[in-house]
């Protein structure tokens, strides 16, 4: 049984500037997208332990990530290697978890948005570059409201990532 896409992955904040214990989420638009991991993610183990929720609300935990090879073309790989964003094909071992409800998914995403304001704020809107300055909390609340109003995983994904 393979995940269907788009899917949402919940992972721990990792990296040099991470806040321990903080949960973030990322999107995967396709199986190819999920099968690629960049050098930074591999270095800090960003996918290890990640909980993946697919478009049918089935969920898995990533228990291991194995690097398979570089994503061509070579020139692009080398260029991005210098930028520490080199893309690799990876094999991920998934452990099935209990399916979750759409409301549970929304709750988890909303909690992540509110606990990671820096990942979801539009600085120029807050500064009032294109209209009156917006309040940061109101902006985050609007994002949460958009998540809660969606009727499917795909609708949430479109609301957040296809603007």
């Amino acid at each position, binding site marked *: 049984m393979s995940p269907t896409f788009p899917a949402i992955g919940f992972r721990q904040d990792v990296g040099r500037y991470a806040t321990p214990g903080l949960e973030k989420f990322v999107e995967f638009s396709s199986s190819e*997208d999920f099968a690629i991991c960049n050098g930074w993610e591999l270095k800090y183990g960003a996918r290890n332990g990640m909980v993946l929720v697919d478009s049918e609300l089935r969920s898995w935990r990533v228990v291991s990530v194995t690097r398979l090879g570089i994503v061509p073309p070579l020139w692009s790989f080398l260029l991005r290697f210098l930028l520490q964003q080199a*893309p690799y094909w990876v094999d991920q071992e998934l452990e099935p978890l209990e399916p979750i409800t759409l409301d549970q998914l929304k709750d988890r995403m909303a909690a992540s948005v509110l606990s990671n304001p820096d990942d979801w704020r539009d600085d120029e809107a807050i*500064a009032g570059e294109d209209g009156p300055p917006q309040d940061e909390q109101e902006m985050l609340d609007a994002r949460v409201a958009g998540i809660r109003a969606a009727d499917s995983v795909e609708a949430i994904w479109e609301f957040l990532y296809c603007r």
Partner: protein
Amino acid sequence: MARMPQGQPRPVPDPDGDRYDEMLRQERLRRARAEADEAGPPGASVGHPELLESLIPVWGSGREAVADFQEGDYAGAALNGALAASDLFLAGAIVKGVAKGGVYTVGKMAAKKATKKATKTTPYNWDAKVRPWMGAQGYLAKGQAGHHWAIPQNGWGKGVPERIKNQPWNIKPMPEGPAGAEMHGRMTGRYKGKPKFNALERYIYGTPAWSKTATGAAVGHPAAAAKAESEKRR
């Protein structure tokens, strides 16, 4: 002068004495000149670089500064020394930028079979993609606003592709805390009752240090080279 047995001195004629003294004086002069030639003229310098050489970052202005200093042109030495220092600062900024990733790229789109769904996303979206990445790489601290300083997100910048304008080079981190939010707000208009910054304030607060340094270097290098050339002609 010879001493006679009675103990009284008396002069003795010496027809070659004056010539001998003159010969010794000439020899001393010759040696002094030779030593001076070996040491070089007073105030000698390493020499000024040629026009193209003077445009080489750090090296050109550094050599120019040393030459100016040795020739006693302290104002010129200070100017060229500052140019060399600004070159070093710029080089440091570039190295630091590259060490943090430098440019945001989208690895996921490198997949050969990008699906229709993948092409629907906005991979260089500021608040859902690039901003979190910049935070993870340490470009922006928690709660720190990032200002699109060269190409705005809105206005005329709306027509510029996100992959160009949503990049670290175009983001000037504002000071952390409420002061940074206010500063960002006053870049583009009134903010909480305070007036919009004037052009000079926007330049001072709204452009990154590396950009100001690069501007100085772009103006300073040709100016310093032209100054050196004109001095050479004199």
